């Protein structure tokens, strides 16, 4: 039994079939990579997991609960967090404030944020947020306004925000895109460390094969809206179907 | 039935004014991304072009007629307009009589110039500023324009009649075999409707069939890319602003015989035309036109006695007071982005 089970998911936009009978099974506690050429439907698939899109047919079960038809924030409350391709952060707020919000949300969830207490009186929350920033190596930037940071920093901040929620499943959409090699390696270390320490299940979309093969315990290859192969990393390398998908075989 | 027909006519006419102003607003918003609160003021400036034309024709030579006296008992000053002096009685009077249509000739260059100055001098610096700043600065500009007009022409409405040939109304009733006087409609309002139909079609044709229009439409969709293609999109946008100002101005010129212009007529129209634009959907030209006519017609229907009485039974007296806003609320609640709005435009 996987923590996330996707069965026969179809999604089309007008005439374009973005996803066709997608089946996917992510095991609890693993890092599962989803790869495939551009336009294969990877981001569409992720959008179906977080409620941004609703599949036309099929089921998405998370921890035995269907994710279809519930709102994005409710999906998140079940424990699914997502890092976006273009970082979605609170650009006008400081780094610290960015992390504080998921920390508060984790505790409060529904509508009960105290309107009159001061933020800095919430000592335990502060500590937790600080710890998150230490984890992603950003504690020295805590008072910077998020919009003024580099793209790589924004991405790490977003990751810290997602981790602050203690998600059961973390979805990462190209977490290292646009990063320098050193940063990429840091991110790889960070993710594997988190996985080791906190056993968070992760689904990663990635183009960088170095990242994929450093992290993934299982890989699904998506091409033209379907999963063509789902296997262990070592079996993926050199798999004829994968080569065909990437190099553009006879279709 | 006749009442119904009558109110459709009325609605089309009211709708023409709404649609023309909303069209200009949408052009500016769609191309430049600027919320122009001074658009009503441009409409008003257009109307005062008609007033100015009339005043110009009425500039007079003053002669003293000692045989008559004025109200203080002083010798009477007799005014003879120079146009009569120069072109003779009949031609001069005809010019004065036709001053409103002739004012179009004055309004086009004036409005293009006003639009050009506004865009280059002010709006240009606000493309990247938040919408709230754009609203505030154009609102300030609207007040300034308005006050300048007030200081020059006074606050009282100034009568600007249509050419005498167009006074009176056309009897549709007789045409359709109904009683005489059942469905009458003034000639000038019919002209106004036709005029706005021409302008609206011209704008659409221009955007659809000219290269210039195509570039502007592309620029509306993606400004940066078009800029990268080496096309001077800025210059075209300036022209576009001028054109939008001209549309507003011409709408104003032709509107003057319907209601005597005054300095605050722009503000009176402004809020309503924003409602029209939003109901139509931000950034959609067909939406603006459609919503303009739709609200015009609904407003006309709401003023019918039968309709008012019906709503009174539903405990909604004076439905005509609130119809526009009620419709706006209903449309926006059922269609999130108005009738034809695009996603993501002015939604944050």
């Amino acid at each position, binding site marked *: 039994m996987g923590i996330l089970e996707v069965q026969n998911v179809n999604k089309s936009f007008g005439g374009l079939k973005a996803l066709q009978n997608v089946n996917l099974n992510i095991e609890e506690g693993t890092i599962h990579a989803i790869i495939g050429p551009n336009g294969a439907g990877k981001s569409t698939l992720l959008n179906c997991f977080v409620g941004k899109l609703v599949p036309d047919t099929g089921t998405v079960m998370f921890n035995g609960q269907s994710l279809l038809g519930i709102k994005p924030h409710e999906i998140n409350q079940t424990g699914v967090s997502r890092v976006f391709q273009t970082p979605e952060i*609170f650009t006008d707020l400081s780094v610290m404030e960015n992390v504080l919000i998921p920390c508060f949300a984790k505790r409060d969830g529904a509508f009960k944020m105290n309107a*009159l207490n001061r933020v800095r009186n919430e000592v335990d929350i502060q500590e937790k947020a600080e710890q998150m920033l230490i984890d992603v190596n950003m504690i020295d930037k805590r008072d910077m306004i998020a919009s003024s940071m580099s793209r790589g920093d924004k991405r790490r901040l977003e990751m810290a925000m997602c981790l602050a929620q203690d998600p059961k499943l973390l979805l990462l959409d190209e977490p290292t895109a646009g990063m320098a090699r050193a940063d990429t390696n840091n991110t790889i270390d960070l993710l594997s460390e988190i996985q080791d320490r906190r056993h968070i299940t992760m689904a990663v979309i990635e183009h960088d094969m170095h990242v994929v093969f450093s992290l993934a315990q299982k890989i699904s290859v998506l091409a033209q809206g379907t999963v063509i192969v789902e296997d262990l990393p070592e079996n993926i390398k050199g798999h004829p179907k994968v080569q065909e998908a990437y190099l553009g075989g006879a279709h | 039935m006749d009442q119904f027909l009558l109110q459709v006519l009325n609605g089309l006419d009211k709708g023409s004014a709404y649609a023309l102003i909303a069209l200009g607003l949408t052009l500016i918003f769609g191309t430049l991304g600027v919320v122009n609160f001074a658009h009503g003021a441009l409409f008003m400036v257009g109307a005062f072009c008609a007033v100015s034309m009339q005043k110009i024709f009425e500039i007079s030579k003053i002669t003293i007629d000692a045989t008559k006296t004025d109200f203080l008992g002083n010798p009477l000053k007799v005014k003879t307009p120079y146009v009569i002096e120069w072109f003779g009685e009949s031609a001069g009077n005809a010019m004065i009589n036709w001053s409103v249509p002739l004012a179009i000739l004055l309004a086009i260059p004036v409005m293009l110039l006003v639009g050009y100055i506004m865009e280059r001098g002010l709006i240009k610096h606000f493309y990247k500023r938040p919408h709230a700043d754009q609203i505030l600065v154009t609102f300030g500009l609207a007040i300034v324009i308005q006050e300048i007009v007030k200081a020059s022409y006074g606050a009282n409405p100034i009568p600007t009649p249509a050419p005498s040939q167009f006074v009176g109304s056309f009897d549709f009733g007789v045409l359709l075999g109904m009683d005489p006087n059942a469905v009458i409609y003034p000639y000038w309002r019919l002209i106004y409707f036709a005029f706005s139909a021409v302008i609206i079609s011209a704008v659409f044709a221009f955007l659809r069939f000219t290269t210039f229009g195509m570039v502007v439409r592309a620029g509306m969709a993606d400004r940066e890319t078009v800029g990268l293609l080496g096309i001077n999109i800025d210059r075209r946008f300036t022209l576009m602003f001028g054109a939008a100002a001209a549309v507003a101005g011409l709408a104003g010129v032709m509107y003057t015989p319907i209601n005597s212009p005054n300095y605050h007529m722009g503000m009176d129209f402004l809020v309503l035309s924003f*409602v029209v634009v939003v109901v139509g959907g931000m950034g959609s030209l067909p939406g603006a036109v459609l919503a303009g006519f739709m609200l015009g017609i609904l407003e006309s229907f709401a003023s019918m006695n039968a309709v008012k009485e019906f709503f009174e039974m539903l405990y909604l007296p004076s439905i005509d007071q609130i119809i526009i806003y009620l419709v706006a609320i209903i449309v926006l609640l059922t269609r999130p982005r108005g009738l034809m709005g695009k996603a993501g435009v002015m939604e944050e």
Partner: protein
Amino acid sequence: MNTFSKADKNTLLFVIIITMLAPFILNPFPEGSAMAQFNAGYPDLMQRFAIFGILAVGFNILFGLTGYLSFGHAAFLGVGSYSAVWMFKLLSMNIIPALILSVIIAGIFALVIGFISLRRSGIYFSILTLAFAQMSFSLAYSVLTPITNGETGLQITLNDPRILDGGTGAGNLPVTGLFGLEMRNTFTLDLGAWAFQFNVGYYICAIFLILAFYLSMRIFRSPFGLMLRAIKTNQTRLNYTGLNSRPYTLAAFVISGMYAGLAGGLMAAMDPLAGAERMQWTASGEIVLMTILGGAGTLLGPVLGAGFIKYFENIFSKINDNVLHTWFSILPDGLENAIVWVLHFFVGKGWHLTLGMLFMLVVIFLPGGLMEGADRIRARFGRNKGKGEDTPNATNPAE
């Protein structure tokens, strides 16, 4: 238990000192001098500064924090005023029940209008609030005349029941008060050529302003305030953080509606009349202008903006040609007339022109509103962060 930072404490202290000493600060010129025209230290205007300050502070909780631009806030002001006047008519001339009712009724109105309008965002939200407010205005002006007294405005009359006070029946109209302390009482301090007016009503308003300001400061610095700022910045991320933003925005909307209701109630408490124009879109627009002009999202800005606009409306509109001639009477006649001729377009009946030009100048050169100007002046004189320090995004223009 709730400690503010030093800067915040200074800001609050600054507000308290300024409001308490306003009768002195606003009356800098001696009586009878040519400059006395610019004195603003008379009860009515000081009350207006405080009341519109409250209104703008409340509006800022919605607009400055969440970025939702309501174009119908004047409706809550009007509703508050009507409720207060009805309390004066029916119950008692004491302002306490009137204020309580105006806050509650405005809150209920805000809840209903907010619940519907907040289903949309951006300009669609603005137009929805505008539509509700305009409908309220139209109805108050005509159809609802039995409740609102329409065009002439709701006033107290001699034959109102006033259950608690007992109707006065004949004689003079009763005045609003707080347990016998009349709002209109003014005592005047005479110092040399200066006369400073201390008005009970003003100090009541000032205390409410300080409370309102303090509350808004608490909200700004609270997790709730953080949440509201997050809504303004990025709703998508908020959703993917497991939070539904609607209840928070609705709460902000209702709070700011209640502020407006309080302001409306205070207006009626200072001057027991409620007119329909208070609800017109121009009145809503004025609130928006005040907030943006002062600096949306900053703590002090809206109060400054409110004072700025009310000052112009009340002081500049009263400068007529006659006054101008007195000012420049020492100049040679020709020059005097020329100066007066130029200036008379900008004052008196031309005060709108001056206001419009100032709007433009402020927006063009001070994108962050007057607060940015204040910050720049502070920076120029090298005074480091002290008074008026605001949220970290103080210099970011609001959207």
